């Protein structure tokens, strides 16, 4: 266990004012160690995406303290300490696949000579080496999302934030992508915060699953996934995997008692 990349103490987030006020998060305490793969799971409206955006300084907390990579979240963003992947790939249509991966490198002022090399390296990492000159609309949804992952990792951030990245993919592609993301995680050593609403996905990927409940969003449980680090098709059929899936499901039900399960 290395130094924590995320430390949240008593985080609260309120959107709007007066009658339109909504409490999205309340009393969030969370610590994510370097190299961890942490999934945030919970019903819609539990604030899991909001929590991810707080870590990325895309929104600001109303209360509590948040430290990302040892600094204020705003400073961590300015220092480009994290890469982010959204549910939609958000690739730029007018750029080739390679130029899309180079986008953050251009903005961050990487030398002209280094950008193409690094972009190709990242595309090889997500096994899209042969598609550098394609345009995003020529790729399938899963391939587009792999480009988004390559783009997010191109500048070697300490932290990778993923907001339901495989939510729009079909089941087969989704499982392949999960395998892919684990391989990339193993090769880069980046810490990952992964928002999902899929229980099997959370268990399969994570070292730790953070279970949240809604209205207001709170952490209701944390489950350490003690599956062996190397995960493959056999993992999905292991008894311990099923036990953990049930454990997370129970935690979700417990957190949602009185409210519908999602």
């Amino acid at each position, binding site marked *: 266990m290395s130094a924590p990349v995320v430390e949240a103490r008593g985080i609260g987030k309120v959107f709007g004012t007066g009658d339109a006020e909504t409490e999205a998060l309340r009393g969030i305490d969370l610590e994510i160690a370097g190299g961890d793969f942490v999934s945030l799971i919970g019903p819609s409206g539990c604030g899991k995406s909001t929590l991810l*955006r707080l870590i*990325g300084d*895309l929104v600001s907390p109303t209360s509590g303290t948040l430290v990302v990579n040892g600094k204020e979240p705003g400073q961590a*963003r*300015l*220092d*480009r300490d*994290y*890469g*982010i992947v*959204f549910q*939609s790939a*958000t690739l*730029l*249509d*007018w750029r080739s696949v390679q130029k899309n991966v180079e*986008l*953050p490198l*251009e*903005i*961050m002022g990487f030398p002209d000579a280094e950008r193409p090399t690094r972009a190709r390296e990242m595309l090889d990492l997500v096994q899209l080496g042969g598609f550098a000159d394609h*345009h995003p*609309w020529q790729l399938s949804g899963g391939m587009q999302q792999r480009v988004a992952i390559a783009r997010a990792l191109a500048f070697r951030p300490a932290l990778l934030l993923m907001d339901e990245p495989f939510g729009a993919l079909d089941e087969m592609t989704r499982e392949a992508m999960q395998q892919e993301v684990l391989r990339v995680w193993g090769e880069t050593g980046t810490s990952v915060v992964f928002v999902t609403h899929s229980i099997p996905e959370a268990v399969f990927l994570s070292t730790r699953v953070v279970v949240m409940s809604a209205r207001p969003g709170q952490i209701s449980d944390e489950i350490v996934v003690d599956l062996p680090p190397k995960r493959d098709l056999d993992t999905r059929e292991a008894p311990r995997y099923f036990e953990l899936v049930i454990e997370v499901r129970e935690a979700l039900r417990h957190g949602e008692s009185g409210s519908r399960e999602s």
Partner: protein
Amino acid sequence: MGGANRRVARAGFSILAVAVVFVLLWEGYKLIWTAMGWENPVRPDDRTMPHTWDIFLTLFQPAQRNGPPFILVELRAALMTLREAFVGFLIGGAVGFGLGVLFVRSTMAERAFMPYVVASQTVPIIAIAPMVVVWGGRANLPQWLSVSLIAAYLTFFPVAINTLRGLRSPHPTSMELMRSYASTPREVLWKLQVPAAMPYIFTALKVSAAASVIGAIVGELPAGLRGGLGRDLLQFSQQFTAAPEKLFAAVLIAGLAGIAFVGLITALEHRWIGANRRLAG
């Protein structure tokens, strides 16, 4: 290149086909309405609706006694008007783009200025044109530049409105992505918003190209500028009862000038789209 040639050939064919259909309708109307003795909605006689071939032949007859043929004179006039229109188009396009960028950066500027921008377009161009000519004269601007400014007045509006829409078109997550890179507003503008706005801007430029030709033609009248299409169109419309085919022939030339300008913009658009993204459909 082969694809481009085929596209041009196909476009040429369909334009020709429509022209033939139009001629058939025109002549057919004349034939039937004359035979039936009908006079509504338009009298079919040669004073009101000259034969299409008379209009066509007018193009190749001398404009003045022993002068060069009509088509040469009017094409030269069209070229002059197009030049004024083009300068106005560039000025108006730049102003429109600038306003779009200003408004996307500052909601306050948009709220303050947008009503005036919209109001500016409800003022008829025939009211604005003489003012611009008088002011331009006081400021010692060359006459053609006053005409260009009138063309710019019609050009800037569609560009401003569409640029603003286009700059706002990127999805919020794309904006979040740029924020996650700690990018400056300038980088967001040039790497995300402007490329995303290009299809909107091209649409506006096509509208503006046509509008700038109208602006230049109308602007030539109060400017009293000779040698352009405006003066000739006015003159031919005054001679309409005596020689109607001249006005029709001049309108044909003016239409061709507008098509040429819009065609140029469309060609640029195809180049940009071809290089950057899939063609629509």
